[in-house]
Each structure stands twice: as C-alpha cells, then as structure tokens.
C-alpha cells in the first residue's frame, strides 16, 4: 500500500541536499529527540509518583494487593502523623545545617585549593594534583574507619561538628573548579594584578564572580550528596537530637513492620528542600550561562 505524501514535490525540482525541511503541514512542532526524551522522563517520574500516591493512602490501602494506583480515599493526615511520629523538625534543621555547612565549606576550600592548582606555580604541583585525583577512586567505605578514628580522637563523635568536618572539602570539587578556572582568560587576572589586586583578591573579586556556573554546579551536587548521605551520619551520630533526616526516616521503618504511608509522606517532605535547591540553582545555571556568553 502506498502512502500519499502530504506535500508532493515535482520530480523536476529535486530538493537541494542542504535545503531546510519544508515548513507548514507535515512538520512536527517539536524535535524528534522529544520522542525519546519524553518517555524516559516519564519512567524517571514513576517512583516519585508512586511515592506521592502511597503517601496519600491509608496503611491498609498502601499494603493491599494489587496496589491501588488511584486511592479510593485521600489521607492527608499521613503528613502530620509522620511529622509527629518522630522529631521531624529537629531532623530537618540538622540536615539543613549539615548540608549548608558542607556546601559553604566546599565552595570556600575547594576554590582556594583549585585556584592554587590552576594558577600558582609551585614545586610538585602536578604530582600533588595526580595524587589528589587518585583519591577520587578510593571508595568511602575504605576510609570510613580511619575517618571515624580521627573524628573520635578529636572528641567529635555524636556532634554535628564531627558530622560536618570530614566533608568540608572534596577532591572532586577541587578538580572540577580547577578545570573551570583554567578556562578563564589569564589576562583578566594579569590586569587585576596590575590594578593592584592581591592573589586572594583576584580569586574573590575576579575569578569567583566569573565562576558562578561552576560554583552553582558544585553547590547543588554537594547539597544533594549531604542531604541524602546516610552512611556517615549513621556511623557518627548516636543521639536522636543529632539525627539527620535520612536517619530519622529510617526510624519509621521497623524490622518487622513498616508504615509505608508515613514513610513515604516523610520521604516526600524530606525531598522538598532538594527540589527547591535544584530549581533555585537551575535559574542560576541559566543566568550564568547567558552571562558567560559575554566576551
């Protein structure tokens, strides 16, 4: 069976190879990529949607089989129940402190180290940098015990300080910022030197303002990592007053019995700051990219 083309092109006017696709009827209003990306995005959304659904169901609905994809009744009370079941507010604040401090620490300390690696010539720089990169390949589980011992000797076990301190700087952050700093035109820094700026001044007044895209990226990655971190808080924190959200949520999950609806409601609430941070940083990404387009 032959298909009649929407627009027939006479044979004697063959289309040039580089001619644009014909406009008007028969042209998709979106890129072909969307046909691939939209289903993938939908698959990514399934767990989130499932979490939302379960968080609105009663315990009975949540554990029924087959699962109720559309709950017959909505139980918004799960949220307040989850909030009250454990000291959620406390966990929120702890998680926020942990994440904010590690983000701030990473932005500051990684910038300083990255600038040195990028621009200051010193003996052994390249070797040191390779060593630094090598540490990226060491999994956290390997250094877990030594790290714990160091923190213990500092007397910081079961404190927020002990939680935060080992994560104030990361090899990944140094690597990422160094790569970015090296792309900035060196003349800007030379001009600043001549204009009377010190090394640190150059970093803070010239380099960092021009590195907002990289800083935003590092910030969001670190925030996400700290916010979702489970293993290190589990090791170092013992008292409930110092629990982070991830530890607190685990208390909703018992060995024999789990209130799935409350767990999902709590998890959903715990993800709100992450979504907010991402949306905020996304705006920064776009602004920063437009901004670096300036030569």
């Amino acid at each position: 069976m032959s298909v009649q083309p929407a627009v027939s092109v006479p044979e004697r006017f063959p289309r040039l190879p580089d001619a644009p696709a014909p406009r008007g009827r028969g042209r998709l209003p979106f890129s072909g990529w969307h046909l691939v990306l939209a289903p993938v995005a939908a698959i990514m959304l399934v767990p989130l949607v499932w979490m939302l659904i379960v968080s609105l169901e009663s315990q009975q609905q949540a554990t029924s089989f087959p699962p109720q994809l559309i709950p017959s009744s909505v139980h918004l009370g799960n949220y307040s129940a989850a909030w009250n079941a454990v000291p959620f507010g406390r966990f929120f604040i702890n998680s926020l402190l942990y994440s904010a401090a590690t983000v701030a620490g990473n932005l500051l300390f990684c910038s300083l180290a990255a600038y040195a690696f990028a621009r200051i010539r010193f003996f052994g720089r390249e070797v040191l940098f390779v060593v630094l990169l090598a540490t990226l390949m060491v999994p956290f589980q390997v250094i877990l015990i030594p790290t714990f011992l160091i923190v213990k000797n500092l007397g910081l076990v079961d404190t927020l300080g002990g939680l935060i301190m080992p994560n104030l700087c990361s090899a990944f952050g140094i690597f990422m910022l160094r790569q970015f700093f090296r792309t900035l035109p060196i003349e800007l820094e030379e001009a600043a030197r001549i204009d009377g700026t010190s090394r640190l001044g150059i970093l803070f007044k010239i380099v960092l303002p021009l590195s907002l895209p990289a800083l935003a990226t590092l910030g969001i990655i670190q925030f996400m990592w700290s916010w979702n971190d489970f293993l290190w808080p589990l090791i170092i924190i013992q008292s409930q007053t110092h629990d982070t959200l991830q530890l607190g949520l685990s208390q909703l999950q018992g060995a024999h019995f789990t209130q799935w609806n409350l767990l999902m409601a709590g998890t959903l609430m715990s993800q709100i700051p992450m979504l907010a941070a991402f949306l905020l940083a996304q705006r920064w990404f776009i602004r920063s990219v437009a901004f670096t387009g300036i030569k």
Partner: protein
Amino acid sequence: MPSVMLDGVTKRFAADAVAVDDLSLEIADGEFMILVGSSGCGKTTALRMIAGLEKPTSGTIQIGDRIVNEVSARDRDIAMVFQNYALYPHMTVARNLGYPLRQRRVARSDVNRRVSEVAEMLGLAELLKRRPGQLSGGQRQRVAMGRALVREPEVFLLDEPLSNLDAKLRVEMRAALKRLHGRLGVTTVYVTHDQVEAMTLGDRIAVLSDGKLQQLGAPQDVYDHPANVFVAGFIGSPPMNLLRGRVRDGSATAGDLVVPAPGVSDRDVFVGVRPESLRPATNGMPSLGFEVAVVEPLGDEVIVHGFVGAELLGVSQERDDAALVAADGHRAEAVACLPPRDRPAEGSVIRLGVEPEEVHLFDADTGLAIRG
C-alpha cells in the same frame, strides 16, 4: 613622570627558548616608545617584563630611580592595556574604570570624580552602566584605555591595543592616542607589529627581531637610515627591494643598476631601493630595467609589481634571521610605487631610475648598513 630603563635584560623560557636577548633600552621621561617587530620577536615579553608579569632571567629593569626586578606588578605604578582589553566581564563600565582606584583604597568620592573625568575625556559617559559584553569593539577599547588612565600611572604600557579594531576605527584611535599622549605626557611603551602605528605614534621606535634590538631611533631616521637588512625590509610598505650586488672600484652594481659608492671598499653587498624611490628614469640617472607584471592603482599612487634583471631580493619578514630568499636565476621580483600619471601597462618593460642618495648599501656578510 619617570624614565624606564632596561639594562641587558634577557628572558629565557627554556634552555633554548630565548624570548628577549640582552635588551638595553632607555625610555625617557614622557617619551612615547614603540617596540615593533614581527610576531615572536620578543616585544610583548619585553613589555610584560616592564609590567612585572614576567621576571627577567638576567639584567635589570629600572622605573624612575628604582630597580623593579623584585617589585610586584601592583607596586610598580604602571598601567597596561591588553590586546584583548581584559575588561572584567562581571562589572559595569563604571566599576571597571574605578577598579584600580578602589583597589588602592581611594575614597569613594574621589573614585567617582576620577571615573567621570576619564569617562568624559574618552566619550564613555553614556556607557557607564553597561557591561563589557554590551559594548562594541571600539567602546571596549576606550574603556580599557580609561581603566589604565584613571589612576594617573607613572608608566603606561600598551600591548597591540588597536589590533582588534577595524581599519577605520584604528585610524581614529591612533590619532586619539597621539592627542592623549600629547595632553598627558605619560611615559608610554607601546607594542605593535604594525609599522604604520610605529611610524605615526612613536617619538622613537625600537625594532626587535629574534629577541634582539635591531635599531633604535626616531621613526623617520629608522626609515631613512635602516641599520641592517632586517630593518630595511621591515620598516616601509611595500618593503624595500633588496638586490644582491657587489662593489668594485667605488661603484655598486646589482643587475643592470649601477650606482656610485665612493669610499666603499670592494665587497659583496645588498643594494636596497625603496619602492617609492623608484621613478621613470631620466638621463644620467642610475636605472634598471623593470618588467611590469601587476599594476595596483591606489588613487594617489600606483603600486607596480614586476621583475628586475638582478639576482634576488626581498627580505622574508616571517623569518627572524632576516634570511634573504634565494635568487631565482637572474630574475627577481621587485615593487615600485609610481605616481598615477606614470602608470605603466602590464607586460611592458620600463626603465626605472633612482637618486644615488636614496640607494642603501648593506654588507652581504654582516647585513649591516654600509652607508645610510
């Protein structure tokens, strides 16, 4: 305003990479000094050493009566305009202009006053709130100049500041620069590869090649009396015709050109004739046959490319050693600039003459001028 003195300054980047080789140069108080040469000749490195962005391997640099080898760039009281302007992209024009002052903790009211003065002087008053990305090339160039001027530095360094502008703007800015220097009288070091800028702007020009100073002098002197074949081939556009010849018994011969060379001992020479020195020959004038290949009328003059019956010519400007291009038998390319009324027909053979005093002789072995 202080002078700037370079004494035996050498910069070596690697064991065999000498960027600046034993450069000695005294730049007088208030002088406009041009460092000119082809790319890679070491002129920018020399400027960066004066700025304090590079450290000399040996030799001393003195600004005023202070040796500054160990003085950091920010303590030298210099200002520099970069080839790509290096404006801070995240700051407005006003903040860019005021930056050097703010770094030196000048009071805010003084910063604002100086910024508006400089903006007024350079015609930037309307643009103060814009960012560099919203400016045209010429405007950016003026902001870069303004940022350098705002602090009233003791020495003003410019690294090819006009090379990113279009031709018309370049001519305008050239004149503006000259006026500005006349008004402010700041000691200025200006790096360029453009010999028109070198000729028009400089009180004196220093011609560099291969890291070495080839000649230092007033632009007209350098043009009239090039010290060696490199300078002869570099300064002047189109470049000087250089023919292989020899001196015998007080007269120099290159092909069919014979010019008197009184007092010059017998030796092999290069005979240099500027294109603009060549004229249709009249009786008794030294002259040479010229086969016209291409005629380029420019309106006020005609540039004639062709061949002369001499052995070889032309200094390769790309090569730092001023090596002469090997001869193609006894027929060599040459260029003449003639008045429009003397425009020859392409393919014709004409005789072009030159006044004996406009002929330059260079020793074939050393490349140095024999008489100027």
